[in-house]
């Protein structure tokens, strides 16, 4: 290889590397917003990872007993205590919302604006109902079970005080993401029918979808770590 070839062409790289490092765009045909959302989600992944790692460290290092998830999170229906019922419904709702979101993205690429609108609205409603159920769950934990962020209400000692702290913190942070997502979905849905994105390919619907699927995916991990472990 001579000196001049180095400065002018990348023939020594494999074709993959050449594609990645080629001029103008690294990800061909990917709009700026979508690339940016992916990178943001990468960063956000690390936030949740840190939270979850913190949770695992807590679980492994505290000396007091950790409350039993299936008992704490049980829901009493017609006098029968069903473990994890509420949480199963919440998870089902959130996963369903991911389905409606995927359909909205599909409709977006077909430029069917009203279909996009209704599907996104449905997604937002499902998300909102998720947040509502989470509020119910929290109030149940706080009022009935006596769990507090700093430990337990008097006469309610279930074991390690970190249980409430980390549970409220992580689910709260996730709930915040869902709430932001609901607002984001509604905003985009309205702007879609108003024709704000007519000159584009409706990537914005997909970008919103990326965020929503991410929030959904994070929930799967939270569900697994907090309710099943």
């Amino acid at each position, binding site marked *: 290889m001579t*000196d001049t070839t*180095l*400065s002018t062409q990348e023939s020594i790289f494999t074709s993959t590397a050449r594609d990645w490092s080629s001029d103008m765009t690294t990800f061909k045909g990917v709009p700026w917003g979508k690339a940016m959302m992916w990178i943001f989600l990468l960063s956000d992944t690390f936030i949740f990872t840190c939270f979850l790692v913190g949770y695992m460290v807590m679980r492994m290092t505290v*000396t007091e007993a950790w409350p039993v998830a299936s008992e704490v999170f049980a829901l009493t229906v017609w006098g029968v205590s069903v473990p994890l019922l509420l949480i199963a419904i919440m998870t089902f709702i959130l996963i369903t919302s991911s389905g409606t979101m995927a359909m909205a993205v599909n409709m977006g690429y077909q430029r069917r604006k009203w279909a996009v609108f209704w599907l996104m609205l449905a997604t937002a409603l499902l998300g909102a109902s998720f947040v509502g159920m989470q509020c119910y769950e929290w109030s149940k934990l706080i009022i009935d079970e006596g769990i507090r962020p700093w430990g337990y209400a008097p006469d309610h000692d279930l074991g390690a005080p970190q249980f409430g702290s980390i549970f409220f913190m992580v689910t709260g942070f996730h709930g915040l993401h869902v709430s932001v997502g609901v607002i984001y979905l509604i905003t985009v849905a309205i702007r879609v029918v108003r024709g704000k994105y007519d000159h584009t390919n409706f990537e914005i619907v997909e970008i919103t979808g990326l965020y929503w699927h991410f929030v959904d995916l994070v929930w799967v991990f939270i569900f697994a770590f907090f309710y099943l472990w």
Partner: protein
Amino acid sequence: MRIAYIAVILFLVTLGSVVFNFTTPFHFDAIGSNWELIDITVYITFIVCGVAFVALGLLMAWWVYKFQYQEGKFAEYEPENAKLESQLTIITTIGVVVMLAPGLVAWNDYINPPSDAYELEVYSKQWNWMYRFPGADGIFGAAHNKYVDLDNPFGMKPGDPYGEDDILITDKTVKIPVDRPVKVLLRSQDVLHDFWVPAIRAKMDAVPGMVTYFWFEPIVERVYEVLCAELCGRNHFNMRGEMHVVSMNEYSTWLNDQVTWAGMQAGAVPLSPEAALGRDIANDAGCFACHSTDGTQRDTGPTWLDIWDGTVELDDGTTRVRDEAYIVKSILDPHAEIVLGYTTTMTTSELTDEELQSILDYMKGLKSAPAKQETTDENESENAEPSSEVDSTTIPGEDPSTN
């Protein structure tokens, strides 16, 4: 050609650094423990890094001098030189291995105390050091911060039979025998601290809620100053202790004079209700972080033992009678008159007149007794707090010591 001053400066700075290194008196002081391997690793690193530093510095100075700008001249066009780059990579890697290998060997020694090491616990709190030996049975009693109170400064678990013979030293000085490996266990009552004696080389943080350790074998009989090496609040710089490395005989004699946990519990002297209240108020206000009540001299603040009456030398050179007026003023406005040898880290206290009076009552009663001083402040009260919970900081006594 213009003189490139920068080339001269680079040359002088490189050379000056080397000269400084060889002429400065500031190097590791004489080692006082078995850790020559640390010094050897430092020495190897010094050589490898020193050669690299001098070579690179001089090369840079030389080339800056040699290849100065000339109008119309072209630099050599050489984008890369794979052979040179791989050679440099290999040389650097060899250098790194030479430095790393002895380091890892030494680290392996460092984290594996010899089986014949006896144990010494250092219990740290803001801002002084306390020490505990496992006593005749060679096993430490369980201890936890949750048991700590004024009468139980080490947080000994009540009722633990292993704890009764533990030797507790609230004084800042500890004595250890020469030529015997010691495993130092570290606990903390509040924040991070770090037990450190520069000449010993070894150190480790004390972390509340955990027991950490390191080990060393002192090889010189000497008095060492113990420093805190981890920022622990406003009096961090004053958190000093003393470690005396002494002969086995002297150590045994000294250890026999120290009080055990059982002895400490037995030696209780009841306080008047006013004085007891004063002691609690002073404790809540954090006074005992800096002021001892048993005559122990701390760098953070004067001891309260025998504080009533007598005279004191102030840092402006005057001498003052320690009457009530002086003490009240010193509590309410700590920065007004400072005792010689201390600094002004005391914060102003918000005390009611009643609270102030109780503290004064307590201080009045602090007179040195002719008996053993170690226990004069440990006025025992009933501290029956039976508890059978699993204790996170229980120290397993798997290797009974021989002291």
